[in-house]
C-alpha cells in the first residue's frame, strides 16, 4: 500500500480551493489503488488550518514554523524533498498555481521524480500514472507518460476537479519540526498588494462588454468603450489587453484578474484561454464574437458569432439608433 501526497495551499488564513480539488482527485486514486492520502501543510505556530483539512486526509503532516507561515518556495522544496525521501509517495499532487509553479519543477530536479504540469486529469495504467494536459490554448489534448520512477509529481490545473469530499478519513495529525540543517531561504516574503483596485468594479456589472486580443490595437479601445456606454454595459477585457497597456488592470477578467458574474457576458475577440474562462464561470449567459471558428471560447459560450468583431459592434450601434 502506497501513499498519495497533497500539498496544501493557503493564503491569508484560508485554504485555497485548488487544495480541495487535489483532495478530490487524490481520494479517487486512493480508492482505486488502495493508497492512503497524506496532506502536507506548512503553517505558522499552532496552525489552525489543520482542522479544516483533517477530514479530507488519512494523515496531515504539518510543519509549524514562522519561516513557513507564508509561502516560501525555497523551503517548501527543501522540506518536501526530505519528506518524499522518507515516505516515497507514489504520487505528489500540487496546484498549477503561481506558487505550485514556483517550487514543483525544482522539486522534480531535486528528487529525480518526473513531473507533469498543468494537468486536467490523471489516469493510472499498469501501476503507472499518465497525465492529461491541454496544449496550444486548449486546442489539442495531450496524454503524457512518465519514465519509470518510485514516485511521480503532478501539478493540477485549477478547476479541473470538483471540490467535494469523496471519502472518509480519520485525519491523524503529525506535527513536524523544521530540520536543524534547513538552509536559509533566499527569498523572503514582504507583503501582499492589491494590484487590481481601481476606478470601476467589473464584478458588480450585470452586462459586460469584454474585449480581447482580437481588438488589435489601442486606437480601437474607444470604439468598444462607446459601444459599452451605449449598451449600459461596463467594459472589461482579457489579459492581453492589460499586458499591452490598452486598459488598466482593474478591467481584467480571469484567474489573475477578477471573477465576474454578469447576467450577460459579451466577449469580443477573446480566444478563451482557460485562465480567462475560469473568470466567467459565474456568468449567466456568454455571447462570443470571434473570427476563429475554432476559438476555445465557443466551447463555453451559449451563443457564438463567427464574424469580424467591429462589424458586429457597428451593427449593434446602428440598431440601437
Amino acid at each position, binding site marked *: 500500500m502506497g501513499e498519495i501526497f497533497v500539498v496544501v495551499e493557503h493564503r491569508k488564513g484560508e485554504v485555497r480551493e485548488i487544495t480541495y480539488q487535489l483532495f478530490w482527485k487524490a481520494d479517487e486514486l486512493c480508492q482505486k489503488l488502495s493508497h492512503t492520502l497524506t496532506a502536507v501543510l506548512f503553517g505558522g505556530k499552532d496552525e489552525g488550518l489543520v482542522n479544516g483539512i483533517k477530514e479530507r486526509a488519512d494523515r496531515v503532516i504539518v510543519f509549524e514554523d514562522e519561516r513557513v507561515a507564508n509561502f516560501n518556495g525555497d523551503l517548501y522544496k527543501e522540506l518536501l524533498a526530505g519528506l518524499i525521501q522518507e515516505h516515497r509517495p507514489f504520487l505528489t499532487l500540487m496546484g498549477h498555481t503561481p506558487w505550485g509553479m514556483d*517550487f514543483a519543477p*525544482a522539486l522534480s530536479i531535486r528528487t529525480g521524480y518526473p513531473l507533469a504540469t498543468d494537468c486536467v486529469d490523471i489516469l493510472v495504467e499498469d501501476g503507472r500514472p499518465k497525465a492529461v494536459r*491541454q*496544449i*496550444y490554448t486548449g486546442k*489539442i489534448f495531450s*496524454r503524457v507518460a512518465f519514465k519509470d520512477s518510485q514516485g511521480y509529481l503532478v501539478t493540477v490545473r485549477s478547476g479541473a476537479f470538483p471540490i467535494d469530499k469523496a471519502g472518509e478519513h480519520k485525519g491523524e495529525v503529525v506535527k513536524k519540526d523544521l530540520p536543524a540543517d534547513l538552509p536559509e531561504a533566499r527569498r523572503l516574503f514582504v507583503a*501582499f498588494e492589491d494590484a487590481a483596485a481601481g476606478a470601476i468594479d467589473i464584478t458588480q456589472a450585470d452586462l459586460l462588454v469584454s474585449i480581447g486580443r482580437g481588438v488589435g490595437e489601442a486606437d480601437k479601445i474607444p470604439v468598444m468603450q462607446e459601444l459599452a456606454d451605449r449598451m449600459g454595459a461596463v467594459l472589461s477585457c482579457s489579459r492581453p489587453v492589460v499586458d499591452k497597456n490598452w486598459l488598466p488592470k482593474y478591467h481584467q477578467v480571469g484567474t489573475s484578474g477578477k471573477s465576474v458574474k454578469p447576467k450577460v457576458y459579451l466577449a469580443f475577440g477573446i480566444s478563451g484561454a482557460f485562465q480567462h474562462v475560469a473568470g466567467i464561470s459565474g456568468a449567466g449567459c456568454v455571447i462570443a464574437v470571434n473570427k476563429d471558428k475554432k476559438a476555445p471560447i465557443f466551447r463555453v459560450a451559449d451563443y457564438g458569432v463567427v464574424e469580424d468583431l467591429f462589424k458586429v459592434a457597428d451593427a449593434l450601434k446602428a440598431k440601437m439608433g
Partner: protein
Amino acid sequence: MEIIVCVKRVPLTQEVDLEINPQKTDIRKDMLAYSINEWDNYAIEEAVLLKEKHGGNVTAVTVGSEEDEEVLRRCLAMGADKAIRIDPGKLSLDSVAVSKTLAQVIKGMPHDLVLTGVQADDVNEGSVGTMVAELLGLAHASVVRAVDSEGDGATVRVELEGGVDEVSKIKTPALLCIQTGINEPRYVSIMGIRKAAKKELNVVKVEDLGLPLEDLAPWTTVEQLYLPPETEGAEFIEGDPATVAEAILRILKEKGVSK
C-alpha cells in the same frame, strides 16, 4: 550586471486550425508561422531595460535548430550583446533535458540574473525556468511582473490569483520567470535585425557540453495527442452583421439587461 535570457521560438497557433501528425505525437508544424515566445519577448526586454539602467551585458540563449536563430537575431536587435544557440542535433529533448543543457551552458558564464519566460506558448509546461534554477542552485521566483534590482538582491513582484501581488526580496544571483505585461517590448525593425547581424552568435553542440547522453533521456513523453472531446458548445448565430446584432439585442432583452 551580467544577465542571461533563455528564449524559445514557437509556432503561432492563434486563429489557426491545428492538425495532429500521423504518429499523433505532435502537431503538424510545416504550414505554421513562427515567432519568439511571447513571455520570452518580455523577458528579453526586461533584461535590456535592466542593462540600460545598471550597465553590463545581456546574453540570449536558445536550444534549437538553425531556424531558431531567427529569435536570437531578434534578441540581438533588441539590445542583447551576444547570443548562443545550443544545437540538439537529432536528439529530442524534454523540458528536463532542455533545462540540463541550458544550465550546463550558463554554468560556465558569469551571471547575476537569469531570466526566462513563465512558460512557452506551445505546450505550456512552465517548468524550464525553475528547473534551470535548481540545477544551478539559484534562488528563483516565478510569474514575476516587476523587478527592482538593488545591491546583492532584488525586490520582485509576483502575480498571484485574483489581482493580488506578492512582493518579496530575493538574493542574487537569481533566476526570474517573467510574466507578460511586465514592460512594453520594443519594436524590432528589419533594419535593426540587419544591423545586429554583426553581433556574436555562437553555436554549441549538445554532445560537446560534457553531459552523458543518458542524462538527456526524457522524463516525460507525449504518448498521444488528440482533439478535445466534442462538447455541445455555442449555438451559432448566422447571418449578416445586422441580423446578428438584432439577435444579440433580443438575447439581452430576454436576460433583462437591455438598455
